[in-house]
């Protein structure tokens, strides 16, 4: 039972390491983000968030074959941390800045995924 609980806690959130791709002068990650505390959280526009007042940063698009897809990022992921910086209560622009720092080649994201939660819950119930 203890191991199941630890499993439960650790798999709700996933750590993803993306290596930025150099494209001329820019470093790109290959996905798009939406959300932020300064955004208008109209529920129809954010199908990924469970709670309609959630102002976190969500992954809205993942470009095919880009570094993000290779690292395992999926559309609909909610980004909780970027390199240790909290992403749950930031503005859209702050999130963008944290992801596109010019002197960083690697970003380590902590994400949660609804499908992950459901999967873990189902497996918990089976036990």
């Amino acid at each position, binding site marked *: 039972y203890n191991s199941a609980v630890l499993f439960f806690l650790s798999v709700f959130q996933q750590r993803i390491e993306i290596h930025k791709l150099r494209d001329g002068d820019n470093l790109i990650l290959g996905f798009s*983000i939406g959300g932020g505390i300064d955004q208008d959280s109209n529920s129809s526009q954010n199908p990924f968030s469970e709670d309609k007042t959630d102002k976190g940063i969500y992954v809205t698009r993942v470009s095919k074959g880009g570094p993000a897809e290779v690292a395992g990022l999926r559309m609909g992921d909610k980004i909780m941390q970027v390199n240790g910086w909290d992403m749950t209560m930031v503005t*859209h622009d702050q999130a*963008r800045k944290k992801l596109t720092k010019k002197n960083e080649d690697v970003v380590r994201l902590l994400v949660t995924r609804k499908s992950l939660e459901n999967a873990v819950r189902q497996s918990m119930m089976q036990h």
Partner: protein
Amino acid sequence: MDTESTYSGYSYYSGRSRGSHRHGERSRDRHKSRSKESSRSEKSVTINAPPAEPLLGEQSVRGEEVQDDNWGETTTAVTGTSEHSLSQEDIVRISKDLDDSVGLDCKRYLNVALSVILGLVVLLTPLAFLILPHLLWPDRLRTCGTACEGLFISVAFKLLILLLAVWALFFRPPRAGLPRIFVFRALLATLVLLFVLSYWLFYGVRILDSQDEDYQGIVQYAVSLVDALLFIHYLAIVLLELRQLQPFFSLCVTRSTDGATQHYNLGQLSIQRAAVVILENYYKDFPVHNPAMLTASKSRAAKHLAGLKVYNVDGPGGNNAAAGIAQSQSRAMIAAAARRRDSSHNELYYEEAEHERRVRKRRARLVVAVEEAFTHICRMQEEEQKKASGDVMDPREAAQAIFPSMARALQKYLRTTRQQHLHSMESIQQHLAFCITNNMTPKAFLESYLTTGPTLQYGKDRWLARQWTLISEASVTSGLKDGTIFLLKCIDFSLVVTTKKIPYIQLAEEFIDPKSHKFVLRLQSETSV
């Protein structure tokens, strides 16, 4: 909950004091019934009947206990119907008699006489200065040259202006009779008197005695007097009229009977002048005082204390004990009144709802009746008047013709809203004729009956507010200050006036560049990283 805790303390005492009495079981019964009552009542009376000196507690309790024995025979109930033996008409008549007092008129005439004398003195002094040399030493006077004659014209016109100005400022019909003298006016009159006297003194000593020949000098002296008088008049305008124009205090006026409140902004005035301003505004701002509206709350208040009477059975027990007894008695009464299963709030609610319904029904009937009555009248045009075909009426006759059809509905409505004493048949017909003459609609005619208007709207005999008394702790000629409170008492009610200073306003400015108004749409923006 508070009631219960204090209550149990009280009854604990009573239980304890009567523990040794023969009426043991009765006291227990009453204790039980009282505690039952307290658990049923939801009042939150926080009067703490203190566990005072047991001696006093015992006495009052013993008094109630004895009363309980034969309370049926000895209770008195205040019913509240036989309180007044004077009808409202009697009171109005008495107040009218008070109106004809002689003392006030005397003061008014004295004031007028004094001011007329002062005015004449002031007016004739320059003329006297000019004429006296010609009368007393005409031969020695140097002839008046051109400049001197020019000065004559200036004296004449300045005197004329002074005369008109004094008439405009001082000789207006007085609006009110004040209890004390008007300080500024008295000061100004004194100033003018001293001024003129000093001029006369100088004139008498230096010119009359020495019989000066320089007539131009004398004329210039007279001109300077008139100039100085004009400047004193300017001072009078500033002190009497201009100083109180700038609002400085905000006065809150509340009527004591029904709480109607108004606010007025006044400048720096003395208390009596402020009272006059307030009374002038009272007649137009406050709804007319209707004593019939107050009887309901009075009867409710009387019912609260009905059936409660505290007897002091232990006889005179000395002064110290008497005060203590009275205090504990009144506390006992308040506590007992709070404990009683009182459903008067329920009665009030249903009574008011019923009254509201009745008023609305009567009002609907009245409006329909009046509208129907007005359709029977139509105005004849000029051309039609020429070929008049009998039956042509003037407004008064027209009003009398349509009045009977609405009279009953109107009377019923006025009775329901307790306004029937404010309007007489004659006044209603006059108002109807007035409305017909001026092409008013039925709604305009009804407006003065559906809403209670200000006191000025009604005839003078309905006002019930003529003779006013100013009650103030500070002297009435002293100026208004922040926190001044005074009362304006009438026979039936009083107006309570409190003063507050208007705060000093510090205004700051902020400049906004018109080009700085820029906007951006906030959508679910998506950024690729």
